[in-house]
């Protein structure tokens, strides 16, 4: 098994592509939220891999901050989605169209 930077970066780009696919195709709010989380995790993988090969610890430090922030963001986002579900009995963002102009 080789253990080179390019392999980590390829996995990260693949995750980014999956995230973008999810964002452009899916219409369920929770699926969109998870697609965004996949993009954040692709970036975290990048940071940790770069941090190993540069080498310094700044990348891993940044990844820890980013994970904590993503957790806070998901908590708020799920809260908003729950409130929306109580009102619409549905979390399909295609049905949210009271605001149009």
């Amino acid at each position, binding site marked *: 098994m080789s253990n080179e930077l390019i392999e980590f970066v390829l996995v990260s780009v693949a995750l980014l592509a999956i995230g973008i696919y999810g964002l452009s195709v899916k219409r369920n709010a929770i699926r969109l939220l998870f697609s*965004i989380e996949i993009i*954040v995790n692709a970036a975290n993988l990048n940071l940790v891999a770069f941090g190993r090969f540069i080498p310094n610890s700044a990348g891993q430090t940044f990844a820890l901050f980013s994970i904590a922030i993503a957790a806070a963001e998901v908590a708020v986002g799920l809260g908003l989605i729950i409130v929306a579900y109580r009102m619409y009995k549905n979390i399909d963002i295609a049905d*949210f169209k009271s605001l149009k*102009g």
Partner: protein
Amino acid sequence: MIDFTSTPIILIALIGSVGMLLPVINIIRKDRGSTSFYGAIALVTLIVAAGFIAYQIFTDNVASPAIFSEDVLVDDTFGSFFAIVVLIVAILTVVGSFSYMRNQSYPAVYFSLILLSSIGMILVAYSTDLVMLLVAWELMSIPTYVLAGFMKKNPSSNEAAIKYFLFGALSTAIIVYGISIAYGITGSTNIGEVIVGFASLDASMVPLGLLATALFIAGFGFKMGLVPFHMWLPDAYEGAPPTIAALLAAGTKKVGFAAALRVIVMGTIALNLEWTFALGIIAIMTMTVGNLAAIMQKNLSRMLAYSSIGHAGYILIGLSIAPFSSIGIQGSLFHIFNHAVMKGAAFIAVAAIAITLASTHLDKIKGLGRRMPITSIGLVVSLLALAGVPPLNGFWSKLMLFGSAIDAGSVVAWAPYLAVAGVLNSALSLAYYGWIIRKMYFEGEDEKRVKEPKSIIAVMIFSVIFMVGIGVYPDPFIQFAGTAVPSLNISSMLSP
């Protein structure tokens, strides 16, 4: 080493601790109402913070503007300038909320979130490390997601919050990915070291540097409302409570430009001077799309939201010609300052209309000048200032921006076209602002005067004095913006 007497640290201790304590006080007091009690605490905190920054500036305790520092936070006039802007906006929002939040539940949480979001905005402006920048960016964003959906029973507030949240989270993800690439090719998260690394990149790595800069433009551009990253903005501003729309349009959007100046402008300059052309193209697209779409709107909040997209384009003119003209960034900063007050006042006038008339549809504001005279005068003055009518403050900052674009024409051939586009767009914007004014004063039957919310009258009087005052005597504020202009010389950093 952290200096515990520097401005940002003291502001964190002051605003952050009061913001955290407000819900605790609410639990201890076991009450649900009393908006004015919690509002007063928040207001006093913000005024003390603004006074502290003004004291620091007048006693020259603040360093001259440095884009870069080895610390994570730098105590410079660039950050202090944005901190003053944010605090003025937060004070306007809190005072406007005294009326808007009356009889609404959870006032303590509401004011606490406003304070936390303001400290986040202030820290974005002071931060010189990408880790700090991201943390402050999220501290600014996450409370505003909740605030946008604060009216839980209102479907449009809910929908606005979900759209705003999804695009906000996506912008964060893009920023993190951009930072990961910037870290990968330069080996540091300190903004100064990243920029110096960009300037001395290997030729094979330059495309990656451009990719990182493009990701930063996309990520920060979502919050700034640049075209083509603006689609969430009208929905979010229309559905959110109008006081929060004021905070978003005048606060978070302006702070995006602080981050953009530190990261995007410096990054493009470091990579290749010609790339600021891309910012010029985005500027023209942003102002044209914003103003054209604003003409077709039927809702006052939505029209103001599109107009704020247009103003993001004007501000971007100064950033795109920054390396070629000495007054470009000064004009941008001055317009940021003016636009924060103008748009804040306009949205809070909309809040007054929403309270008394329960709708912000354009048909409902017929004869508003006779129903709510003071709110109407505030709205008219801020609309005229937004259009850039002399002698109001918007005129001077637009004059500086367009003048600097023509000035830069001696260096780069495309710069004067930015000024042409800006002047045409200003004329266009006067059309729809004039339409609102016409509806308010020259249409409708003999309406009776209704009672206007008291705290909003205070905001209107303050902002009218402010806008006319700066318009008549702009010199000290132009100089204040001038002291905040950072040096863009990267080569001086390369040779220590």
